[in-house]
C-alpha cells in the first residue's frame, strides 16, 4: 500500500511536558484511519504536526512524501481543526471563498465548488448569513466544507462532529465515506468510539502521548475487548453501585447515568449476581441485554479509564 501520511517515532515536548512519546502512524491511500483517545491524549498535537503548524521535537513526518512545511504538502491536505476557526464578520459563503482563494481557487470555479459543498453540508439556505449568527453545529459543518474546498487528496479532521446532534453527525459520516469512496485518505481524530467504529479502516488508540494499539476496529474488539458486555438500563442508579458490582464480578464496570455496562467472560454466571446487587442496593431494572464489546470497552480494558472521562 502507498502511504500518504507517515509518522515515525515522533516526540513533542512543551517545556517539561511530553505531549507525544514516540508516536508512529501511517495512513494509506484511500484509507480512513482514526486516532481514538480521550481529551489530552495528544491527538491534536499529532495532527498539528501533520498539517505543518507544529514541528516535532524528534522524529520524521512525511505528507505525500514531502515535509509538512512544504507548501505543496499543504496543498494536498484539507484540514478541519477542532475549533471552527471562522471569521464571524463574513458570511458562510465568504468564509469559503476566502479559503478557496488561499488554495488558489477563484472565480466561477470557486463559486460552483462552494455551492456544491454548501448543499452537501446543508447550509446553502444560510450561506449568505453572517457566521457569527450560526449555531455551533452549523459552524462545524461549514468548517468541514472548507476542508473540502480544494478537493484535497488527504482529509485531516480533528473532532469534526464535536457538538453535533446525531442526525448531523450521520450526515458528516456520509461525507467522510463518500471521500473514501472517491479514493481520498482520511485521518480522523475523535473521542467518539461509534464514529471510529463506523468510519475507520484502521484505528490507532492513543493514550497519554503514546499509541497503545493499532488495527481494524473489529480485530481490536476481538483481540482486546471483553468476550461480552452486559448492558442494564435502570430506573434509578443507587450510589456505590459500580464499586459493589466490581467486587462481585471482578471486571470493568461503566455507569452512564442510568445505563450500566459490565464486561463479562461468562454472562450466564454474572447476570444473576449483578441483578441481586442492584436490588439489594435499592435499584430497579428497566431492561437487560448481553452485547458485543465496542472500542470504548477496548479502551477501558487497556487503560482502566473511559474515553470521555
Amino acid at each position, binding site marked *: 500500500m502507498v502511504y500518504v501520511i507517515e509518522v515515525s517515532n515522533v516526540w513533542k515536548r512543551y517545556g517539561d511536558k511530553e505531549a507525544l512519546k514516540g508516536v508512529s502512524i501511517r495512513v494509506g491511500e484511500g484509507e480512513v484511519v482514526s486516532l481514538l483517545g480521550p481529551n489530552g491524549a495528544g491527538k491534536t498535537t499529532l495532527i498539528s504536526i501533520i498539517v505543518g503548524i*507544529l514541528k516535532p521535537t524528534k522524529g520524521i513526518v512525511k505528507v505525500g512524501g514531502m515535509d509538512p512545511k512544504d*507548501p505543496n504538502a499543504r496543498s494536498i491536505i484539507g484540514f478541519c481543526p477542532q475549533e471552527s*476557526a471562522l471569521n464571524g*464578520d*463574513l458570511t458562510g459563503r465568504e468564509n469559503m*471563498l476566502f479559503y478557496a482563494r*488561499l488554495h488558489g*481557487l477563484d472565480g466561477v470555479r470557486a463559486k460552483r465548488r462552494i455551492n456544491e459543498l454548501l448543499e452537501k453540508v446543508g447550509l446553502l439556505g444560510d450561506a449568505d448569513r453572517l457566521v457569527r449568527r450560526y449555531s455551533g453545529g452549523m459552524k462545524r459543518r461549514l468548517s468541514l466544507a*472548507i476542508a473540502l474546498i480544494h478537493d484535497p487528496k488527504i482529509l485531516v479532521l480533528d473532532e469534526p462532529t464535536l457538538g453535533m446532534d446525531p442526525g448531523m453527525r450521520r450526515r458528516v459520516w456520509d461525507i467522510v465515506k463518500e471521500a473514501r469512496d472517491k479514493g481520498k485518505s482520511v485521518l480522523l481524530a475523535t473521542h467518539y468510539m461509534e464514529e471510529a467504529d463506523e468510519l475507520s479502516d484502521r484505528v490507532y488508540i492513543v493514550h497519554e502521548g503514546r499509541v497503545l494499539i493499532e488495527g481494524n476496529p473489529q480485530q481490536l474488539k476481538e483481540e482486546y475487548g471483553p468476550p461480552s458486555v452486559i448492558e442494564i438500563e435502570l430506573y434509578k442508579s443507587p450510589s456505590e453501585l459500580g464499586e459493589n458490582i466490581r467486587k462481585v464480578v471482578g471486571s470493568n464496570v461503566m455507569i452512564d447515568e442510568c445505563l450500566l455496562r459490565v464486561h463479562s467472560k461468562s454472562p450466564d454466571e454474572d447476570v444473576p449476581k449483578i441483578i441481586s446487587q442492584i436490588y439489594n442496593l435499592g435499584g430497579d431494572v428497566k431492561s437487560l441485554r448481553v452485547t458485543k464489546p465496542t472500542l470504548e470497552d477496548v479502551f477501558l480494558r487497556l487503560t482502566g479509564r473511559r474515553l470521555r472521562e
Partner: protein
Amino acid sequence: MKWVRIKAFIVAYIKALFRDKASVFWIIVWPLLILLMTAYIFIPPSFGNPVTLNLGVVNNDVESMSPFNGTSFVVMLKEFEYNGTKLFEVKLYGNESMLINELRRGKLDAGIVIPEGFGEEVILGQAYLKVYISGESVYDFQVNKAMLGEFMRQLSVHIALEKLRMTMKYVMKWVPENVTIRTSHGVMSLRELIWRYMLGMVLPINASVKEVAPKAVVDRPYLLGWFSLGAIGMMLLYSGFSIGATTIVEEKEEGRLYRILSTPVTEIEMLIGKTIGGLVVLAISSLIIVVAAIMLLHAKVEWNPLRLVDWLVPLHLLLISIMTISIGLMISLIAKTTKGASNLATVLGLVLAFITGIWFPREWMPKSLRILADIFPITWSVDVMRDIMVKRAMLHEVMIPTVKCVFITIGIFTIGIMLYRKMIRKYVEM
C-alpha cells in the same frame, strides 16, 4: 507569491472591517465628529468678524462746558466702528461700584469711569480715565485689553492732533509767512518747519501697521482645511496602529491562524494582503473625511491632478499608513488580546495626535512638546499634505521632508516585518 491569496486577505479584511460598527465609528464617525465640533465651537462661522465688547461706562463729566466732555466721549464710543461693525455695546451706570459689580458678575467685558472735569483736562492738560477689564478668561482678557488699548491709543493720537491744529492756528499768526530756512532736507518755510517739528513732538513715529498673515491662518475655510487634514492624520494614526496591532492577535485569538497557516499561504502573503486591506480602508476613510469636510463645512482643500506636486499627497497618505501599521505591529508584541491591542493602539494614537502637532497646531503647544512634533515623522507627512493642499506649496518646498519620510517609512516597515515574523513564530512553529 500568488495574487489570489493576497486578494483573499484584502477582500476579507475590508468586508469584515466595514461590518464592525466599532471600527466604522473610529475610522469615519469619530474624525468627522471632532471636525464638526471644532468647526462649530472653536472656529464658528462668525470666526474672523470683529468682536463687540460689552462696555459699561460711568460718566461723572456730564456738566463740563468743554467741547470734548464725558458725554461726547460716550457718543464716540457708541459710534466707533471697525469694518462696519460697532466695537462697543455701551451701557451707562450711575456709580463705580455698580459697574464693578456687573463686571464681577460677568455681564460686562470692560468698564470705563470718566471722572469729573475730564473734558477740561483733555483741553488744558492730561485727562485721566479709569479702565476695568474683565478677567473671566485669559483669552477674553487679552482680547478686551488689546481692543480697549488700541482704541485709547488711537483716541489719544486723534485728540493730540486736534489740540495741535488748534494751537498752531493761533501760533501761525505770529510767524512771518515768507521766511525760509535751509535744512538738511533742503530749503523750507519757517511755518512748515514749525508745523513738522510740533507734529513730531505729538507723534514722533507714525507707524503703519498692516496684518499680512497666510490665508491658512486667518480664513475659516482654510483653517477648516488645515483641521480636516489633521483629522485624517489623527484617524490614520490610531487606525493604522490598531490594524497593525490586531493583525496577528485577532487571528490567533479566534483560532484562525492555525487554519490559515495550514494552507499553502505564506506569512509574507498574509502580511501583504492584510497591509493592502488596511491601506484600502484608510484611503476610503480619508477620502470620506475630506469630501465631508468640503461638502458640509466648506473647508478649503485643494488638489489638482495636473499639478505634479499634488501627487505627493497620496504618496504621503500611503507613507503614513505604512508607518502606522508598522508601528502597530510593534504594539502587537506587547498586547495579549485583540481588545487590549485595539485599546492600546487607539489611546496611543489619540495621545500622539494631540501632542505631536497633528491635531493641534504646534504654536499652541509648550516648547517641550514641540520637540516631539519636530522629530515625529508622521507629523512631517501631515505637514507636507497641509503645505500642498492648504498652502499650495511648490515641489522644491516639500521635496526634502518627502525624501526623509520615504526613507523612514522603509526603515520602520522593515522593523515591522521582522517583528511580525517573530510574532508568527511565537504562535506557529514555522
